[in-house]
């Protein structure tokens, strides 16, 4: 009986960050039991989206066995402590941080929001509850040169060169993790009588047979989309951005500061990302083409670049990208699972692309089906989990827009007011009366924790109807003050001891990072 068939081999179709990250995460645990092969085309360029990671990437790299020093040096990476949102609240002179570290007291379940509201005119939320906000102000690194790899004084992720990252992963997977690489083009998908994929046919290597197929072919989605016809659920009505223009720009000078957060600046028809690597700044404008054409977007991008004191590239050298925001109706069908842009893609507002790849590959690795009949159960659970996750990301991204006071264009008026998901509406109503806390969301492994919601809500200037401290609350004002003070003291200490992002990266280029 085919259904008791053991799952012994995996074929990953497509390289890029999605394919190679999946290969690495799977191989790190299963390389002795499962044969892992990746087929990638020599003719298809990787799109290289996702140049910002979450702190999860530290665990991912460690698990795969890539040393942090090697990663930093080979991927032109820099340290990222969170995001700064500029002019989102209103069209001018507004900015706030969403740092990676949790607000002080959050882990102990202490509500710092209500006491902060009393002093909100003196200090913004992020600076009140997180030292990291101060460090981002000064372009500091989140760690000392003497910290061992993957450790720091605050939670951090990375900015990186996606092409180089895929190359490093490929080198590591093939040389150290026994992943087999086939360079070829897939031209046909062969299925058995029950609909399972038997093999993919390649131009030069014939048929590649496997028990499980992973579709990492990007937005083309060769297997799940083209072969199985699983529908794409467009979310364009909720998140209107569907286009981007992107450029890579030189620093103003060789020793220019490297910001340790992603800077996201709202524009009349979308927003501009600004990601600083040691070697360059990656700057792009994601916008809604219903409201703005490519020419206008390029002009606004060039204006931003010039305002930054950088040399704007020629308009015709700026790359144009089109995308349809959304995700698949399901991600795992029969013996095929999609990971990466083949599964879903949204505007990179909170750098969700790479983290969704990590989460998907990790789930697959932790629940790897032993047999074909077990696979059906794993597939159902995977589908439920990741549909839920995509929806929560959509809620969270939409939150950035609905809290805005911008009215300068029809784009903002529409983005703020229309198609707010029911789940988000309910949360917003709840948070009129109490701040986000543990348990407000359904799962313990939510993509965005209630802490992230706090940073965005109060950063955007959300004003609640009324928060009241329970009169029998055990936390005294004095204890609250101690926590606020702890933040400023920690901030000051870090400002004194932490190197700048630039200085630390220069040091790492020279000396590496100690693994112990």
């Amino acid at each position, binding site marked *: 009986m085919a259904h008791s068939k053991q799952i012994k081999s995996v074929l990953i179709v497509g390289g890029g960050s999605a394919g190679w990250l999946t290969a690495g995460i799977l191989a790190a645990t299963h390389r002795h039991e499962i044969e892992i092969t990746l087929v990638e085309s020599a003719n298809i360029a990787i799109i290289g989206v996702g140049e910002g990671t979450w702190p999860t990437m530290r665990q991912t790299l460690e698990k795969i066995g890539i040393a942090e020093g090697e990663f930093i040096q080979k991927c032109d990476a820099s340290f990222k402590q969170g995001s700064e949102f500029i002019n989102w609240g209103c069209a001018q002179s507004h900015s706030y941080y969403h740092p990676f570290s949790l607000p002080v007291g959050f882990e102990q379940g202490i509500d710092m929001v209500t006491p902060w509201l009393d002093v909100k005119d003196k200090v913004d939320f992020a600076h009140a509850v997180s030292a990291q906000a101060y460090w981002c102000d000064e372009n500091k690194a989140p760690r000392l*040169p*003497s*910290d061992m790899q993957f450790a720091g004084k605050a939670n951090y992720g990375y900015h990186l060169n996606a092409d180089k990252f895929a190359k490093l992963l490929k080198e590591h997977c093939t040389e150290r993790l026994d992943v087999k690489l086939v360079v070829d083009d897939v031209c046909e998908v062969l299925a058995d009588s029950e609909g399972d994929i038997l093999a993919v046919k390649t131009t030069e290597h014939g048929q590649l047979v496997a028990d499980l197929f992973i579709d990492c072919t990007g937005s083309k989605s060769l297997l799940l989309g083209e072969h199985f016809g699983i529908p794409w659920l467009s979310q364009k009505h909720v998140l209107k951005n569907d286009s981007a223009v992107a450029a890579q720009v030189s620093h103003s000078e060789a020793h220019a500061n490297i910001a340790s957060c992603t800077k996201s600046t709202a524009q009349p028809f979308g927003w501009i990302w600004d990601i600083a690597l040691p070697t360059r700044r990656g700057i792009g404008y994601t916008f809604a083409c219903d409201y703005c054409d490519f020419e206008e977007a390029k002009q606004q991008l060039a204006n931003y670049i010039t305002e930054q004191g950088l040399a704007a590239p020629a308009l015709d050298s700026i790359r144009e990208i089109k995308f349809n925001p959304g995700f698949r109706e399901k991600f795992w069908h029969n013996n095929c699972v999609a990971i990466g842009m083949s599964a879903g893609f949204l505007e990179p507002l909170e750098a969700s692309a790479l983290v969704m790849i990590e989460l998907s590959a990790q789930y697959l690795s932790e629940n790897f089906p032993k047999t074909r009949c077990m696979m059906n159960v794993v597939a159902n659970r995977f589908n439920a989990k990741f549909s839920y996750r995509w929806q929560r990301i959509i809620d969270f991204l939409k939150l950035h827009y609905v809290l805005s006071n911008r009215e300068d264009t029809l784009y903002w008026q529409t983005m703020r007011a229309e198609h707010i998901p029911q789940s988000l509406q309910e949360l917003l109503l709840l948070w009129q009366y109490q701040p986000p806390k543990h348990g407000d969301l359904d799962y313990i492994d939510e993509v965005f924790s209630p802490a992230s919601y706090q940073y965005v809500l109060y950063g955007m200037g959300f004003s609640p109807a009324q928060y009241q401290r329970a009169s029998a609350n055990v936390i005294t004002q004095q204890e609250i003050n101690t926590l606020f003070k702890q933040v400023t003291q920690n901030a000051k200490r870090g400002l004194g001891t932490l190197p700048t992002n630039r200085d630390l990266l220069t040091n*790492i280029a020279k000396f590496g990072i100690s693994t*112990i």
Partner: protein
Amino acid sequence: MSQEQLLDNITHKDIKILTQRSASLGDDVSITRVFPSEFAQLQSDYPIFFKKNGQTGQFEAVVLLGFNERENLYLTDSGWRADNIPLSILRQPFLIGFVEKQQNGMPVSEPAVHIDMSHPRVNTQEGEALFTSQGGMSEYLQNVNSILLTIHNGHSQSQAFFTSLLKHELLESALINAGADRLSGLYTINEDTLSRLSDNALFELNKQGFLQHIYMVLASLGQLRKLVRAKEQL
């Protein structure tokens, strides 16, 4: 603030250096950098550890002199109580600086002796003179020169030593509880890994002279007890 100057026999002809050991002359340090070539001599007096440099994150060897900031348990009213004193202490107030020179039309930087004029050892009244009345180097300064040269060579030697220790995974975090004091950020040799090294690895370490350094470090750890006793007698 330190005030470093390139040493020469005109500017510094009248300078004298106080050479006695005392806290007021800058010897009140609880930790100081040492180099592998010193290990054999120092191991009978001091516990040798490894520590990361704050600026570069690179490992370097140190000896522990005390447990609290500015606490040097080797320092007594009658001087420094040990047979050998680390070169990084003896070199004070001199240091190696680099000067840009032209060589075949190309700029090269060469090591040269510098002096920290703000150091409490520097004066014009008493101590060892730097230059003879004819402007030649005094015996004292010749000795300083050779100390600085040893330190200069020690840097590259040290780098090779730690590259090798890291490669063989021979470093581990040292947990030291000295009474109520807990010292952090120190590393030592992982004896488990050492005992399981392959023949090839041992051969290689021995050929480079690193195996001897490793055993000197292990032997030096006994001095920690001596240091704790000295602390208790305070």
